């Protein structure tokens, strides 16, 4: 168990390193000179050169990377070009917004998708289920930024129920959450249905039914209990992916999270800020994934982590 955790932490560090290194190199190979973005209008070449030196961009890429790693080991991921503050600080300010949105979205998804999936499984192969099935396919077929716009037009502009952009009050979270949840509900409810159909048809359920156990208990305690692991895994994976930035939804709603931050940083060629965001979000997502994996043995005693599966 301990070796398993250590191994996974090692993998996390390696993956985070690879992701950061890839982004680091890609950023510096991409066209566009960051210095030009931060120089006064009509800069002289001397001014540009001074800014490049200040940012450390006058060195070769390998030298820059070694410097970056040295600073990283001391817990310093660099200073944002744009905010002129430690990049990590800027990311940490935005992170709570992304986490809040991700938590809200995953809770709404679970609350809607699980009963919906169970209902579809119990009504498997009926016309009602066909309707729900087509509705979930439609749900995963709409571009998420478009759902966001349409919700904005209807509920923020026409009805004026919500503020159209940014984070102004607690109700600002409603529309972005719904936008994310529409796609996720579609995906998760189909998974729940698939798992439940298998379990509802298993012999152990017939035996339980013959013992006079109520249909409600049969569905939830017996069949759903045995479908829970893949569902929890999927929810965890989705949640981890959201921490990597619900980029598009954040941009549409001007939600002040890390996704919006990184898209702007990309436009401004703010290298340290992009690197810091990638580093933080990748590590966070991997940690969440690890925690989900550690939940398995608690949910199903048959699972033993770290042992070679036959």
């Amino acid at each position, binding site marked *: 168990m301990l070796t398993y955790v250590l191994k996974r932490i090692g993998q996390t560090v390696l*993956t985070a390193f*690879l*992701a950061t290194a*890839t*982004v680091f190199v*890609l*950023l510096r*190979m*991409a*066209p*566009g000179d960051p210095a030009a973005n931060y120089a006064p209008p009509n800069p002289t070449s001397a001014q540009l050169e001074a800014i490049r030196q200040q940012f450390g961009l006058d060195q070769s890429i390998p030298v820059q990377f070694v410097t970056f790693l040295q600073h990283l080991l001391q817990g310093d991921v660099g200073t944002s070009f744009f905010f002129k503050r430690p990049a990590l600080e800027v990311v940490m300010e935005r992170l709570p917004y992304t986490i809040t949105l991700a938590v809200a979205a995953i809770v709404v998804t679970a609350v809607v998708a699980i009963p919906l999936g169970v209902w579809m499984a119990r009504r*498997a*192969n*009926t016309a009602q289920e*066909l309707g729900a*099935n*087509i509705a979930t*396919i*439609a749900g*995963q*077929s*709409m*571009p*998420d*930024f*478009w759902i966001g*716009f*349409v919700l*904005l*037009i209807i509920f923020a*502009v026409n009805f004026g129920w919500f503020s*159209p952009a940014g984070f102004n009050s607690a109700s600002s979270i409603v529309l972005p959450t719904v936008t994310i949840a529409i796609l996720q509900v579609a995906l998760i409810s189909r998974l729940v249905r*698939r798992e439940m*159909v*298998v379990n509802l048809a298993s012999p152990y359920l017939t035996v339980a039914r013959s013992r006079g156990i109520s249909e409600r208990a049969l569905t939830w305690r017996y069949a759903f209990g045995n479908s829970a692991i893949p569902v929890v895994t999927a929810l965890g994976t989705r949640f981890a992916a959201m921490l*990597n*930035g619900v*980029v*598009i939804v954040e*941009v*549409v709603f001007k939600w002040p999270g890390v996704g919006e931050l*990184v*898209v702007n940083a*990309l*436009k401004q060629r703010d290298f340290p800020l*992009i690197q810091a965001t*990638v580093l933080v*979000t*990748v590590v966070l*997502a*991997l940690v969440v*994934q690890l925690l989900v994996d550690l939940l398995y043995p608690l949910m199903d005693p048959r699972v033993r982590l770290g042992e070679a599966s036959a």
Partner: protein
Amino acid sequence: MTTSTPNLSEVPGSILGRESAVTRLLLRRSAAARRARYSTIKIWVGVVCAGLVVIPVALAQVLPLPDPIVGALSESSLPPFSPGHLFGTDPNGRDLLSRILHGGQTSLVIGVLAIIVSGLVGIAAGAAAGYFGGWVDTIVSRLLEAQMSLPLLLMLLLVVALFGPSIPVITLVIAFAQWPEPARITRALVLVEREKPYVAAARVLGLHRVSIIARHVIPNVLQQVLVVVLLLLAQAVLLESALSFLGAGVQRPYPTWGGIISDGRELFVTGKWWLVTIPGVVIALLVVGVNLVGDGLRDRVRRAKGDQ
């Protein structure tokens, strides 16, 4: 397969001496028959939805449409159903229908090319990993895992920034994002397939390993993989529009679906709702169509293979 058992209900004067209690009506109402019917419904609804989009898009050059790039400023911001402009016009007076159809050509070409590339790479990598195992499998599996944990969208934006937003670059970027799916399913199917007797027979006959994979194993799993690849087309269209929306699409003035929506978003507050809504409906219609066809086909393939 035994062909000697006669179907009792069709034998005149059957040994049971009476009609079977299993009537045709009951058979038609059975779960299996319903599943078959519903998958047919899904496929046909899907074909109609996708056809409604694909056929006009394919015929964009032939249809009598105004120019998608140059508009008449006198016809700026007309609402839908204006004479001559079914979907209305944008503030530059360009016909929205024409822009959507021409933009759809770019989006569809990118989507189709992307799934061809990701399908070929995914099938090759997945089949090699599944058949050979060992270090080939280790490399492919680690690559798949690594890609799962990367901030994919950010990487794609960076690569487009690096190589420029041309059609080949965007196609390859989407293919890169999508190859894990066919690779994973091909690998899983080939793992099962390689243990079957016909593979051993082919080996005994002295066939080369590559030709066993290409001529015997892959044809047996292709049907299931192709359904997944078809479903990826829906994802590819969505991803392309998302990239355009974030500014990493084919550049203006050439229309793409994501680009049209992105241009329209600053205007929707001023009441020009159609510039955002209509292109989104068109994308959704196509993607729903492709997803329904894929889903229906998947039900059929599963049934043919004797699963759930």
